[in-house]
């Protein structure tokens, strides 16, 4: 009954209530969005790589190395010699190594040259191995394995012939038209940058950059089933899996002091933490801003309720006359405030959900952040409960005003 009264009373002041509601929806949407992106980005970053002990590349910043090797963002400043790669990966403590060769693209998706160890040893999320949704790993220089999103977005299936371009733009001027690849495998979705990658063999990357005559010879050899060893001169980076965690620092030191070539090795976990701390300061600023917006919206709600108290003096007298105590009036005003905020919570969750539903592709392609539309999380619930708490706290002002009016004004209408 009180709820109905609160609702009707709000509807009676539709315009000001709707405006207030709108401002709270905006502020809560901001809060919810920031929190959702934060948690999703963190999860998305952290799940991208697992079980990789070291990432090795040319000497650069550790963030830069992490970004281009794992997240396929930005470019390497320099390459790693094939000899160095072989020398390091043959060390005793190394169990597996995955070479990475970047720099080409296919219709805006990065092309990664690697070997079949990639499909065997690369882990993401909770130490999960890459799985094939269709087809299998490449076995010749012209086989390509595409990520789930590439397959979906470009509508590619196994057997599709594709062409790689040099450079990483969506539109490239130098298409390697004379090196047609064939899709031989499609990976299952991972929710990591792997989904957005076209994987080919290192030989394939070499083939792309071969002069036509050499390329034709290679194609000839492949069709005839002859085995031709195409060794790259350089690769972009490589990942290492070690026998024991104890040897990580030893190997890292030896790579960092590698005489033949300036190299660096980073621990992905540590680089991720650094990446994260960089992002979290931005995220904290966003949080503070959205919190300020929220507080001002709630103050707007209070102002609206408080200014309505004057015109509601007679209403209070009527409610008093039919037996409502001061506490009832206090509760009524609280209910009105909470009703507005609760409605705003519902609306903003819906709004944010819709936005992420629409924008998840954009976020993935531009920022490498894989965002789920599952907005509700424990933190989110705590945050929204806190929003209700703040509302109730700030609504103490008009509610107390109603209480006092009820207590002192009496039933007279003068």
């Amino acid at each position, binding site marked *: *009954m009180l709820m*109905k*009264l609160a609702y*009707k*009373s709000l*509807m*009676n002041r539709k315009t000001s209530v709707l405006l207030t509601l709108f401002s709270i929806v905006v502020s809560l949407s901001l809060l919810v969005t920031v929190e959702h992106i934060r948690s999703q980005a963190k999860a998305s970053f952290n799940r991208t790589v697992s079980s990789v002990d070291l990432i090795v590349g040319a000497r650069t910043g550790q963030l830069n190395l992490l970004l281009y090797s794992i997240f396929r963002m930005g470019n390497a400043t320099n390459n790693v010699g094939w000899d160095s790669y072989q020398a390091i990966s043959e060390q005793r403590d190394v169990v597996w190594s995955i070479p990475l060769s970047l720099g080409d693209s296919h219709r805006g998706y990065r092309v990664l040259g690697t070997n079949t160890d990639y499909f065997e040893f690369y882990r993401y999320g909770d130490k999960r191995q890459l799985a094939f949704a269709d087809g299998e790993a490449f076995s010749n220089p012209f086989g390509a394995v595409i990520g789930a999103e590439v397959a979906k977005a470009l509508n590619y299936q196994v057997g599709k012939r594709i062409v790689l371009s040099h450079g990483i733009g969506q539109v490239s001027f130098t298409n390697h038209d004379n090196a047609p690849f064939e899709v031989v495998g499609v990976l299952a979705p991972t929710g990591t940058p792997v989904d957005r990658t076209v994987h080919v063999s290192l030989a394939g990357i070499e083939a792309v950059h071969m002069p036509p005559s050499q390329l034709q010879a290679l194609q000839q050899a492949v069709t005839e089933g002859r085995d031709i060893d195409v060794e790259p001169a350089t690769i972009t980076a490589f990942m290492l899996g070690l026998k024991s965690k104890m040897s990580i620092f030893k190997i890292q030191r030896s790579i960092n002091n590698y005489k033949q070539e300036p190299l660096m090795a980073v621990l992905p976990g540590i680089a991720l933490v650094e990446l994260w701390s960089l992002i979290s300061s931005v995220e904290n600023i966003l949080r503070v801003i959205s919190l300020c917006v929220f507080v001002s919206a709630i103050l707007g709600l209070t102002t609206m309720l408080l200014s309505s108290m004057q015109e509601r003096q*007679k*209403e209070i*007298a*009527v*409610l*008093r*006359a*039919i*037996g*409502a*105590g*001061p*506490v*009832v009036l206090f509760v009524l005003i609280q209910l009105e405030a909470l009703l507005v905020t609760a409605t705003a919570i519902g609306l903003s969750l819906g709004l944010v959900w819709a936005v992420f539903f629409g924008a998840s592709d954009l976020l993935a392609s531009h920022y490498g952040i894989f965002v789920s539309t599952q907005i509700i999380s424990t933190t989110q619930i705590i945050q929204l409960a806190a929003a209700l708490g703040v509302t109730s706290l700030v609504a103490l002002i008009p509610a107390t005003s109603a209480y006092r009016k009820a207590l002192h004004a*009496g*039933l*007279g*209408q*003068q």
Partner: protein
Amino acid sequence: MQNVQLAEQQAAICLRQLRFSYDGNSDVINIPQWTLESGQKCFVFGASGAGKSTLMNLLCGVLKPTAGDIQVFGQALTKMSARQRDRFRAKHIGVVFQQFNLIPYLTVAENIRLASWFAGKTTSSDDQNFQQRLLELVAALQLKPEVLHRPSRELSVGQQQRVAIVRALINQPELLIVDEPTSALDSYARDNFMQLLMSVCEQQRSSLLFVSHDLSLQSYFDVDVNLADINTAGGQ
């Protein structure tokens, strides 16, 4: 305490050594002794500032007297907590004001239902009794049943005042306190209103305390009291 059926033979209102002042100032009300017998219709008049609304607030239990005793049908309001007095008012006293009696954004029926809700009638069987009683009272006050579902702000003043009586009587209160209910009505509507009020009070066997300064209404009542005669403090 509230659930005890109030005895009919007791005085409707009994005031003894009643004194009231706002925040320790001089007394607004000082009534050594006054009684309204059960079932009587009493006309209380006095100039403005004679303490009429203060007395009304005291009788309704909204204000607490500085000293003395107020009994309504044998129940001592002065011994109840504020919450108990609110409850008592909801169940046993119907109040009709000068003008603003209804919440404008609720329908007529919702306004009246709210009054029965505050009297603690919340179950579905209460709901059925409520519907029945509502229709009886609406008929008794010559209101059309269609009016029930209209927002009360759409009603004329005369209709609103009649709805206010329905609202005041919905919980079968033993005492009806009415404060200048006709001041916003023209003379035809006023006479009509007074006749309906009297007949419905008789029908419901409610005691009536009618506060006004309009002496032309005096003829409708069993007893009349000049507030200046019983209130030695003489108002503000």
